[in-house]
C-alpha cells in the first residue's frame, strides 16, 4: 500500500454550470405582479409583498420606515393583538422589512395554513389604520432602541458615512431620537394609501408553490384594493454628497475605533460592476482577502475587516469597514491605504486571482441553497431592471477578467485621497 500523500491537494473541478430557476410570472387586473418559484420539497412557502418606497421628505424622515414597521399594528377589523394571535397560532411568521429602496411584508407559512394566514396579510396591506396608542408605543420604544444603537461605534460610523455620501435623502437619513416625535397618524395614513397600491406591488412566491397556492394569492389580492387613484410617487430627490471627507467622532475611553472608508460607486446596472466585484473580493470580500490577511492575520489589529459594495436604485457604494484597537487605529488606516494603492500599481498575481475566481463561483453556487435563494437572486435582477443575462455576464467576468483589466478598474474607481473616511472612537 502506498503511503497517503497528505501534502498534495486532491484534484479539484471548477464550477461549470450554474442553473438559476426562473419564475413563472402573472399580472393581476389591478396591476399587481406575481412571480412564482415552485420547488416541491417541504410543505411550506414564503410569500413577499414588495413595494417601492415613496418619495423621501426631509421634513418627515421617518415616515416610510414607521408606516412599514406599523403595518402589523392594527386594521379596522383586527387589533395588533389579534393579528399576532392569528399568525402565531398557525405557526407562521409575519415580518415587515424596510430597506432604502423598498418596503416589504413577508409571510412564512406551512402550506396547510395558507388559507388562514393569507387574509391577515390582505387586511394589513389594504386596511391598516395606525392606531394612535400603537403609534405612541412605537415612538417610545424606537427612541429607546436608537439610544442604545447610538452607543455602538460601528452603528454611528455607518450612519455618518451614509450621511456624508448621500446627504438628506432616503440613503443618508440619520435620525435622532427626537425625530420620532414628529410622526403624525394622518401622515402615516396618507403615506400608506399613496404607497401601498397594487400598481406598486410585486408579489414573490417561493417554496412548494403548487397551482392552488398561486390561485389563493390571486383570488385574495385581485379584488383586495379599491379603485386605484393616482399612482405612487416613487421618484427620489437627488443625492447631496458632503464636501467634508474626513469625519472624526471622538468617544472618550473607547477601547476600539470603528472605521468606515469608501466612496459612491456605480451600481449593478453598470457593465463594470461584475469586474468591481472581483476586485472587491480580492481586497476584502472573503476570509482570505488582502485586508484580512494583512490587518487581522498578520498584524492582529482587529477581529474582522472587510470591504463591500452596495447597489441601490439611484446609486451604489464601495466601502471598507472594521473595528480596530484604539491604539492601532492610525496604523490600520495606513495599512488600508497601502492595500488600496497596491491594487492600482501592481497586477494581481495569477495564483491569487484564480483562487478568487474559484471562490466566487463556489460561493455563488453555495448561495443557491434552496428555492428561496433563487427568488432572492431574481430580486437582485428584477429591481435593478436587469434580466438573467446578468448572471451569465457575471460568471463570464469572474472566469475571464484579466489582472490588467482589474488594475485599470482600480485606477478608474479607487482614489483613496478622495474617499470618505469616518472614524468613531479614538484616532
Amino acid at each position: 500500500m502506498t503511503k497517503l500523500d497528505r501534502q498534495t491537494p486532491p484534484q479539484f473541478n471548477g464550477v461549470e454550470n450554474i442553473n438559476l430557476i426562473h419564475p413563472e410570472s402573472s399580472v393581476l387586473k389591478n396591476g399587481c405582479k406575481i412571480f412564482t418559484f415552485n420547488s416541491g420539497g417541504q410543505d411550506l412557502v414564503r410569500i413577499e409583498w414588495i413595494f417601492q418606497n415613496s418619495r423621501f421628505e426631509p421634513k418627515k424622515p421617518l415616515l416610510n420606515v414607521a408606516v412599514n414597521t406599523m403595518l402589523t399594528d392594527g386594521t379596522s377589523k383586527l387589533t395588533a393583538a389579534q393579528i399576532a394571535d392569528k399568525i402565531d397560532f398557525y405557526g407562521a411568521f409575519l415580518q415587515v422589512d424596510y430597506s432604502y429602496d423598498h418596503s416589504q411584508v413577508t409571510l412564512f407559512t406551512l402550506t396547510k395554513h395558507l388559507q388562514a394566514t393569507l387574509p391577515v396579510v390582505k387586511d394589513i396591506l389594504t386596511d391598516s389604520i395606525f392606531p394612535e396608542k400603537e403609534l405612541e408605543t412605537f415612538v417610545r420604544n424606537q427612541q429607546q432602541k436608537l439610544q442604545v444603537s447610538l452607543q455602538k461605534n460601528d452603528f454611528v460610523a455607518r450612519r455618518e458615512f451614509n450621511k456624508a455620501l448621500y446627504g438628506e435623502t432616503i440613503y443618508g437619513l440619520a435620525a435622532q431620537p427626537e425625530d420620532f416625535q414628529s410622526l403624525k397618524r394622518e401622515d402615516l395614513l396618507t403615506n400608506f394609501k399613496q404607497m401601498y397600491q397594487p400598481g406598486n406591488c410585486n408579489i414573490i412566491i417561493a417554496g412548494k408553490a403548487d397551482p392552488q397556492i398561486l390561485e389563493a394569492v390571486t383570488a385574495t389580492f385581485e379584488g383586495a384594493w379599491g379603485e386605484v387613484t393616482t399612482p405612487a410617487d416613487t421618484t427620489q430627490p437627488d443625492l447631496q454628497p458632503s464636501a467634508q471627507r474626513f469625519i472624526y467622532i471622538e468617544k472618550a475611553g473607547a477601547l476600539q475605533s470603528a472605521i468606515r472608508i469608501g466612496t459612491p460607486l456605480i451600481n449593478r446596472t453598470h457593465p463594470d460592476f461584475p469586474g468591481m466585484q472581483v476586485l472587491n473580493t480580492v481586497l476584502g470580500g472573503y476570509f482570505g482577502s488582502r485586508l484580512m490577511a494583512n490587518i487581522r492575520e498578520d498584524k492582529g489589529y482587529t477581529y474582522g475587516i472587510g470591504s463591500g459594495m452596495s447597489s441601490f436604485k439611484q446609486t451604489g457604494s464601495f466601502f471598507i469597514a472594521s473595528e480596530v484597537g484604539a491604539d492601532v487605529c492610525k496604523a490600520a488606516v495606513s495599512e488600508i491605504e497601502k492595500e488600496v494603492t497596491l491594487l492600482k500599481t501592481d497586477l494581481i498575481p495569477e495564483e491569487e486571482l484564480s483562487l478568487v475566481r474559484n471562490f466566487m463561483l463556489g460561493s455563488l453556487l453555495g448561495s443557491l441553497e434552496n428555492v428561496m435563494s433563487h427568488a432572492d437572486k431574481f430580486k437582485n435582477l428584477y429591481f435593478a431592471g436587469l434580466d438573467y443575462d446578468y448572471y451569465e455576464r457575471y460568471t463570464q467576468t469572474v472566469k475571464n477578467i484579466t489582472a490588467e483589466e482589474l488594475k485599470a478598474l482600480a485606477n478608474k474607481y479607487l482614489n483613496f485621497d478622495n474617499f470618505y473616511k469616518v472614524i468613531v472612537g479614538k484616532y
Partner: protein
Amino acid sequence: MVKFNRFTLDNGLRVIVHEDNTTPMAVLNILYDVGARDEDPGQTGFAHLFEHLMFGGSVNIPNYDGPLQRVGGENNAFTSNDITNYYITLPSANLETAFWLESDRMLSLAFSEKSLEVQRNVVIEEFKQRYLNQPYGDVWLKLRPMVYKKHPYRWATIGKTIKHIEDAKIEDVKAFFKKHYNPQNAIMVVGGDVKTDDIKAMAEKWFGPIPAGDKYIRNLPQEPAQNDERRETVTAKVPLNDVYIAFQMEGRLDDSYYAVELMSDILSRGNSSRLYRSLVKDKPLFSEVHAYITGSLDTGMFVLEGKPLEGVSIEQAEQALWQEVEKLKTEDVPADELTKVKNKTESTLVFSEMSLLDKAMNLAFYELMGNAGNFNHESERFLAVTAQQIKEHANLIFRKENSSTLVYLAQAVEASEAELTEIEN
C-alpha cells in the same frame, strides 16, 4: 424527516451521512466534544482561542483557508460552553479537499508561534469588540459567576479576563490538542450531494490512519442547587437601565427541557407572547422584554431581561416580571395558547430542514446528546408537553432563592455626541 446513515471508524470517529440530492453542494461538519466548560479555571477562554489556532496551519498543510477557497469552499467555526464546531461548505465535486484539510488538522497542527501570537491579538480584539466596547456587552461576564459558583459555566466562552488569553503558551496549546482533538472526541457529519459508500471510502482513506488517542473522560464539578437570592447592581456607561433575572434550570438532556422551552415561548416568542403583550403593549413598562433559555448540557439558565421605560423604577420593573412568572405557577396555560407555541415549534423544525448546514449541525449535536435519530423525534417531544408539566416546572424554577438579579443603572448624563464631534479635512 432527515434521513441519514451512520458508521464508526476503528479509531472511534463517528460519521453520519445525510444524502440530499436537491443541491449541488456538500457540507462537512466536525463537532469536537470540548467547550469552555472543559477549561482550567486559571486558563479560561482557551477552547475558543484554540478554535482560532485550528486555522493557523496543520502538520502537512501550511495554510488552511487558501486551498479551500481555491476549490470554491467556505468555512467557519464556533465555540460554546459545551462544544466546538467546525464546518465547510463546498461544491460536492470537490468534497475530497475538505476531507484532506480536516483530517490533517485532526492528525496534528503546525503549532506555529507566529500564529499563536497573532490569534492572541485577534481574540483580544474580539473580547473588546463584543464584550467590552458595547453597551451591556459584559453582561455574561457578570451574570455567569452569579448563577454558577462551582460549575465551569461560571466563565464565558471568551474567558474570564483578557489576561488569561495574553498568558497562553504554545505548550498549553499542544497539551489541549492532545487531550481533546482526536477521533474519539469528534463527530463528523457529511451532507448534501453525496453517496454514503463514497463517504465511507474517503473517511477510511483520510481519517482512518489517525491514531485514536486517549479518550477524554469528563468529570466536572456539577452546580449545586441554588438556595439563596443573589443580586448585583452596576452603574455603567449605558444609555438605559436594564434588568436581568436568571434562574437555574435542568440541563438540555433532562426530560423537563421541552416543557421549559415552551414556557419561555409562552412568555416571549412573537408579538402574541405574554411579556410583550402585557408589559410592552397593554401596560407599557418596558421598551423591550425577553425570556430565553441557554440550552446548556449541564445545569442551564432561564433568563428574563427587560429595559424599563423612563420613569419606571427598577422595583416596578422587577415586580412586573415576577407577576408574569407567578401566573405560570398558579394558573394552567390555556389549551389554545399551548397549541400555539407547539405549532410554532413544529413549523420552525420544518423550516430548519430548508438549510443543509443546519441539518448537518443538528445531526452532529443530537449524536453528541446520544442519538442523531432523536432530531427526528423532537416534534413529538414538544407535542407531548402538558399544561400541568409547565405549571410544575414554573414552580420549581421561578423561586426567589433560585434567582440571580443583575441590574444595570445608566450613568448620569454624559456629554452628548454633538459636543464631542470634530470635523476635520
